[in-house]
């Protein structure tokens, strides 16, 4: 088969997967009696109709892409870092903690923001190291170690919000006391979006793209992921590389948590990770672990999240519809890819 024909076939199969995903989501809408066309139109206008909504897409995109690129690193090493939700949460906790410590000092606000972001990255890395250590030294599968740590992180957040970091008066699910505006990451006038966080997101994509593509570290990491035994025999220090991949992922996850605090919520809230870690896993799977595509798919997923916000208000539909579409896409791309491989194998 010629190369161009193979590429066309690949694209054709990918499109088929997308079509099937939309088809099934439409069937679900019809089943609930919702008007599909109007629903999709509402999602699109909700995500793109105004400058405000487009800027909101980026507010979701930044933490999502940070989580995704971090996961690309662990995926390269063949690891399923499901504990990323907890790593984002710990990033947010460390960020909030440092801001609280420096709140009434004479440290300049910009320096506080900078330091608190670093603290957040440290927090994420610590939580990731824990999951990594459980895996490499304890033999605990990273999926289950990470899951447990996610729950612990959530409990830790709740304890802080209702305990030591309680709002003056009574603690509530709305989170800790918001920080003064001088400690927010500078935002565009009239919008929730911060160019600084956008810059960090883009920087992260570039760094990970370069790292996985053209460094020795990236190459060895992929060797570990492809065949750990062969990599070990070739002299790659496998467990060190696995730990490192966890730490790098934790740094990015922690950064995502820090952004959630300094640029989005300006305080610690119970669900600070907003499920972006799990969503990042979906994005990473969908792009077949390529950083550049991740940026676009993550934006599409972010837009779906923002677009679906109007659904409950206008159509009385639950906004989890965006999650259904996001999940269906990955599921059908996986299925179609499997079918394609089987067909190709049969022909050979």
């Amino acid at each position: 088969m010629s190369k161009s024909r193979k590429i066309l076939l690949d694209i054709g199969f990918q499109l088929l997967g997308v079509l099937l995903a939309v088809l099934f989501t439409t069937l679900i809408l019809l089943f609930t009696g919702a008007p599909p066309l109007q629903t999709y139109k509402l999602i699109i206008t909700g995500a793109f109709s105004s400058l405000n909504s487009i800027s909101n897409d980026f507010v979701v995109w930044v933490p999502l892409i940070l989580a995704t690129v971090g996961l690309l690193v662990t995926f390269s090493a063949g690891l399923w870092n499901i504990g990323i939700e907890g790593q984002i949460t710990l990033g947010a906790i460390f960020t909030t903690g440092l801001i609280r410590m420096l709140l009434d000092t004479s440290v300049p606000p910009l320096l506080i923001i900078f330091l608190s972001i670093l603290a957040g990255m440290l927090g994420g890395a610590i939580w990731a190291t824990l999951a990594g250590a459980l895996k490499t030294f304890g033999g605990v599968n990273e999926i289950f170690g990470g899951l447990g740590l996610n729950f612990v992180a959530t409990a830790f957040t709740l304890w802080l919000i209702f305990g030591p970091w309680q709002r003056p008066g009574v603690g509530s699910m709305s989170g800790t006391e918001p920080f003064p505006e001088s400690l927010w990451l500078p935002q565009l006038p009239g919008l929730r979006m911060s160019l600084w966080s956008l810059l960090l997101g883009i920087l992260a994509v570039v760094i990970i793209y370069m790292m996985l593509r053209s460094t020795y570290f990236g190459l060895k990491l992929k060797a570990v992921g492809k065949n750990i035994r062969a990599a070990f025999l070739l002299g790659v220090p496998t467990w060190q590389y696995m730990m490192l991949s966890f730490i790098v992922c934790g740094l990015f996850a922690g950064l995502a948590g820090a952004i959630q605090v300094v640029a989005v919520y300006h305080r610690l809230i119970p669900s600070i990770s907003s499920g972006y870690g799990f969503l990042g896993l979906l994005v990473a799977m969908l792009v077949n672990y390529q950083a550049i595509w991740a940026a676009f798919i993550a934006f599409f997923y972010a837009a779906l999240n923002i677009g679906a916000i109007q659904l409950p208000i206008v159509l009385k539909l639950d906004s989890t519809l965006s999650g259904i579409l996001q999940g269906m896409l990955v599921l059908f791309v996986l299925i179609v890819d499997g079918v394609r491989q089987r067909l190709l194998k049969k022909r050979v």
Partner: protein
Amino acid sequence: MADNIILIGLAGVLTAAAPILFAVIGETISERAGVINLSVNGLILLAAMAGFAVAVNTTNLILGFLAGMVVGGLVALVVAFCSITLHQSQVAVGFVLALLCRDLAYFLGNPYMGLPGPRLSSLHIPVLENIPILGPFLFRQDIITYLSILLVIAAYIFIYKTRPGLILRGIGERPSAAFARGANVNRLRYVYTVIGGMLVGMAGPVYSLSVKAGWKGTISGLDGLGWIALSITIFGGWNPIRAAFGAYLFAFLQWFGLYLQPQMPNIPSQVLQVAPFPLMILTLLFVNIGNTEWVNRMLAGLNEPTRRFISRILRSLSAKPPASLGVPFDQE
């Protein structure tokens, strides 16, 4: 009086463990056949919602339970198709389904939020319930609780004492050997994955029609329990009796957390509710650490009696997963 509170609490533990038992035994059977169904968390939510919706619409509890099982079987069928037939990663497919089913449950369940619905009433076993102390504790449960205990025993006997059970272990452990002995490995894997999924699906309606009756959407508190069930499956070392022990331990710890609540009013209840998780991590650590290289290397450096003592403890704790768990099998 104090005794009473504890006894009532322990009776509650039996009830609370019932859905976890269904999920854990179902997952154990599926993993014994070599297929990890990672979708459990979303699957339970979707089955809980479907079971409740069907029970409300038909006012028939049995149909509600059947609906949960059908949902579980269908989701498991997708896992089986993607992993056995298409050779895609079981973890990837299962994880996507975990998220997808959860969102489906919340989306489709939206109209049923907070609706009053039928619920299973407890079954009082005549005579026996009047036994002092033990009576109210053991013999006033609802029928599902009794069924969950029977399921554990039945699964244990099936896996370890019957010929089909031997084949089940074979296809998860050494599928090529099982195949050579005439077992249709992939077809059996389909069958056991779907059966396992149906049992996991049962856990859903056990919540929504019995333990935590009703459908409360995102605040139902069910989100996360599927992940626990997956951990307990490992904790149980793929053995139904040991898995049951894990399920009861977990339910007990959760109850104990709530029991401690009044003594520590400053700590939100959610915090005490997660107390079992660090413990779960620790037990997984103890279960697995004996298999790691550095522990074996360290043990080799100790003197003989100490080494034998420690490795005996580690061996009794440790559990190895079915050797071909997650590995596709090609029959041709």
